[in-house]
C-alpha cells in the first residue's frame, strides 16, 4: 500500500521545478528545444535519457545500488527504478546541453578571433538568420 503524504512528492516536485527552470533558460537563450532545430534537440534529449536509464538498469540488476525510502512517490518504472529517476536523468541531460551551449558561446566570445560584434551575454540568443530575413 502506498501511503501518500506531501513529503512523497518533494523530490518529484523539485525535479519538475528544475526541468521547468531549464526550459526557461533554454527559451531565453534559444539553445535546444527553442533552437532552430527543436526536433533534433528533443531527439538528443531522448537518446541521452535512454543511455542513462540503461546504465541505471544494468547497475540495479547487478545490485550496485537500490531505491531508498524517502521523499518519493513509490512509483517504479522497473524494480528499484523510481519514476523520479526518469525526471532526474532528463534534467541531467537537459542541464548538460544548456550548460554546454552557454559555455560554447562564452568561449567563442573570449576568443580574439571572433568576428561577430559583442552581444549582451551568453543568455542573449544568437540571431536566427531565418527570423532576420522576415
Amino acid at each position, binding site marked *: 500500500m502506498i501511503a501518500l503524504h506531501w513529503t512523497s512528492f518533494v523530490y518529484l516536485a523539485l525535479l519538475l521545478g528544475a526541468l521547468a527552470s531549464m526550459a526557461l533558460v533554454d527559451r531565453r537563450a534559444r539553445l*535546444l528545444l527553442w533552437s532552430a532545430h527543436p526536433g533534433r*534537440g528533443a531527439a538528443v534529449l531522448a537518446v541521452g535519457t535512454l*543511455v542513462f536509464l540503461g546504465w541505471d538498469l544494468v547497475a540495479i540488476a*547487478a545490485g550496485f545500488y537500490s531505491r*531508498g525510502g524517502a521523499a518519493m512517490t513509490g512509483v517504479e518504472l522497473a524494480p528499484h527504478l*523510481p519514476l523520479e529517476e526518469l525526471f532526474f536523468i532528463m534534467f541531467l541531460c537537459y542541464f548538460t546541453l544548456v550548460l554546454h551551449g552557454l559555455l560554447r558561446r562564452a*568561449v567563442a566570445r573570449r576568443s580574439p578571433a571572433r568576428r561577430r560584434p559583442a552581444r549582451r551575454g551568453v543568455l542573449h540568443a544568437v540571431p536566427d538568420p531565418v527570423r532576420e530575413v522576415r
Partner: protein
Amino acid sequence: MTYAGLAVVVVAGALVVALVVARVRRLGARWWAATALAAVVLVALTVVFDSLMIAADLFRYDDAALLGVRVWLTPVEDLAWPVVAALLLPALWALAGAGDGDDERAEVDA
C-alpha cells in the same frame, strides 16, 4: 563486474563517441574547452547534489560493490555520470548537426 568497472566501460564508450563526432563534425579546441568546463561544473555539482540525495536516502549502495572512496558522501564511481554527460550529450547534439552551428561554424578550424 564492479560498479567501477561498469563506470569505466560507459566513460570509454562516451569518450569514443565524442572523439568520433569531433572528427566527423570537425569540432575544434573551443568545443573541447566548453566540454572540459562543462565536465568540471557537472562534477562539482554532482558531488554536492549526489551527497544531498544520498543523505536524503533516495538510493542506497551495496558497499561491497564500491571502491570505498567517497567525496563527501558521493562514491567516486558516481562521478562517471557527469563525465559521461559532458562527453556524450554535446557530441550527440553536434552529431545531430545543430550543436556546432550557432557559435562555431563561423570560426575557422584551427
